[in-house]
């Protein structure tokens, strides 16, 4: 929840500041005999430089945290195969194909890297992992013909739910599964 709350508060703070700035600019246009913005070119230049610098700092901080790089140099302690199809998730320790459809209850170790190999047997689906507080922990897409490898280390034992986050038809909102972290 920490990350989610931070994102929401960050957004609300920036939005409130923007709304306040627009209100301030609007109010300034109602005062008589003002002469407009002084040195707008210089101010525009500095605004551009500051904004560009903020964006570059954010890029350099956030890109290394992208999921493609997380635990990329580690060997997974457990590999879980996931095949999605309208409107169920099949999970197994063995590869699942149309010729070998199988599913079993999954249990993965806490504090170890787990790799989910996610595909779909029909349409695009989402594979989103929620903790027992209904917080979205991580996700990837389930795409027919492709296998997305999602690596994660669960630090809290318990039951985790899987929801589909890519619209896949009439039963989309009922499509779910779960696994246990011990």
């Amino acid at each position, binding site marked *: 929840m920490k990350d989610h709350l931070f994102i929401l508060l960050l957004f609300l703070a920036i939005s409130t500041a923007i709304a306040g700035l*627009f209100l301030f*600019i609007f109010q*300034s246009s109602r005062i008589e005999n003002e002469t407009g913005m002084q040195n707008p070119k210089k101010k*525009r230049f500095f605004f551009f430089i500051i904004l560009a610098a903020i964006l570059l700092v954010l890029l350099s901080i956030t890109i290394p945290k992208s999921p493609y790089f997380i635990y990329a140099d580690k060997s997974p302690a457990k590999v879980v195969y996931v095949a999605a199809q309208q409107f169920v998730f099949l999970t197994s320790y063995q590869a699942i194909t149309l010729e070998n459809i199988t599913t079993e209850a999954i249990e993965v170790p806490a504090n170890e890297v787990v790799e989910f190999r996610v595909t779909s047997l029909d*349409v695009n689906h*989402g594979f989103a992992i929620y903790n027992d507080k209904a917080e979205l922990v991580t996700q990837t897409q389930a*795409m027919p013909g*492709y296998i997305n490898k999602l690596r994660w280390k669960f630090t809290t034992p318990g039951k985790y739910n899987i929801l589909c986050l890519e619209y896949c038809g009439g039963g989309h909102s009922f499509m779910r599964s779960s696994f246990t972290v011990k």
Partner: protein
Amino acid sequence: MASISLKRITSTWIITVLVLFVIAIIFGITMRFNQGKFIQISPTSFYSIMTVHGLTMIGIWSVAGLAAVHYLLTRYVEIPTSISVFAFLLTVLGVVMLWISAFIGEFHAGWTFLYPLPFKAVGEAWATPLFLLGLGVLGVAWLVWSVGMLFQILKKYTLSQAFAWQHFGSNPSVETPPLILISTVSLIGIIVCLLSAVVLLVLFFAEYFSNGSYTNDPLLMKNITYFFGHTIANETLYLGLASLYELMPEISKKPKFKTTWYVALAWNCTLVFILTAFFHHLYMDFVQPLGFQMIGQLASYFASLPAAAVTAFSVAVLVYKNQIKWSLSNILFFLGVMGWVIGGVGALIDATISNNIILHNTLWVPAHFHTYNAMGNVLFSLAFFVWVANDFSDLPVDTDIPKYIIAFLLLGGFGFVLMFYFGGALSIPRRFNLYPSEFNEWSWVATAGGWFAVVYLFAILFIFMTILKKCLKVYNFQHAGRKQ
């Protein structure tokens, strides 16, 4: 001065857009109330409504933007009204096909119709080809209209002049008006994305008629789908900005915006960023080449630079300490810029890959795109509608701004999107007809969002009523004769 035939077709577009907008808002409210368990509809009905809601919103604001730039471009270049009439007739046909497909054929694959979902049991067997054909009809209509306008621009300006490249040097021989520059950039973007839609439809039909001997690549289809969907949604917004550049200074009785080297650079860069930012829709497809993922975040971030440092800043320079007689039109432009910028912040947060992993396909996504559409682009188009309606009739121009309209618009609009942001931060998935059991306690957020949308709807109806009489005046033949 616009011809009476152009005024009539523009008025027809405006009335059609606003009627469809009201209907599409009601669809949206229906979905939020269903998610909040305030009403109950079947999953199929929900997803058919969702499909029509998305398509209608994207469609009407695209044509509103095209109709606005068509009207305004006639100040600089001659554009035959017939292409707008042609586009209108085909648009009506396309919309009817799509609605039949969704409401009778129960097609419910979403407006993005992500391959191969339309082939996997979504409605009647005939609904999928009808839906795809309907999209094809709309594509032809808007392609002809966009190409027609671009062609007329390029008859007067060379391509480099239309892109305002001469402004990179000192003392440019020809001055490219901002409207020409922005229209060129936006129309090229629209043409490219409509061509990608044609490719997409051809690939769909190739598989449909192959009887299983040919199947498409889902990753390629996803890339093309989002290239089309992302680009058209964003270019629609830029068409709205074209109106703003042309009209806001004029309505505010200030000097017109001029094209300078940085304005030219900003809009040239915008075209590049918009055509490449779509990769952010595929962040969660880890098989996508890593380079594309990086381009997605870089383009999404850098797209905000010209938007903020050029367009938003220019509006600030126009207004700051510059006494302005505010009217409904220029206040809508001004508020639209605010909504666009706030929606942009929400978009930037989501376009950050490390955030996207916990926001992708949650309610954060409709949160940010509803912000820059409902509180940004829609307001740009409404500002044009209010301004142009005064051009349609001899009725007196309203100088007072009805404060209740602004209050309803801000309260309803921002309240509505705030409920989406809350939902996104709570990890609630988007495109769920009903929330999963773990989110039961938050269903009131959806209902509240629906009620805020009702307040927003009242504001839209008030604006509609304000301009309807003037729009209808243009069909008055006596009046028309006098104006001609």
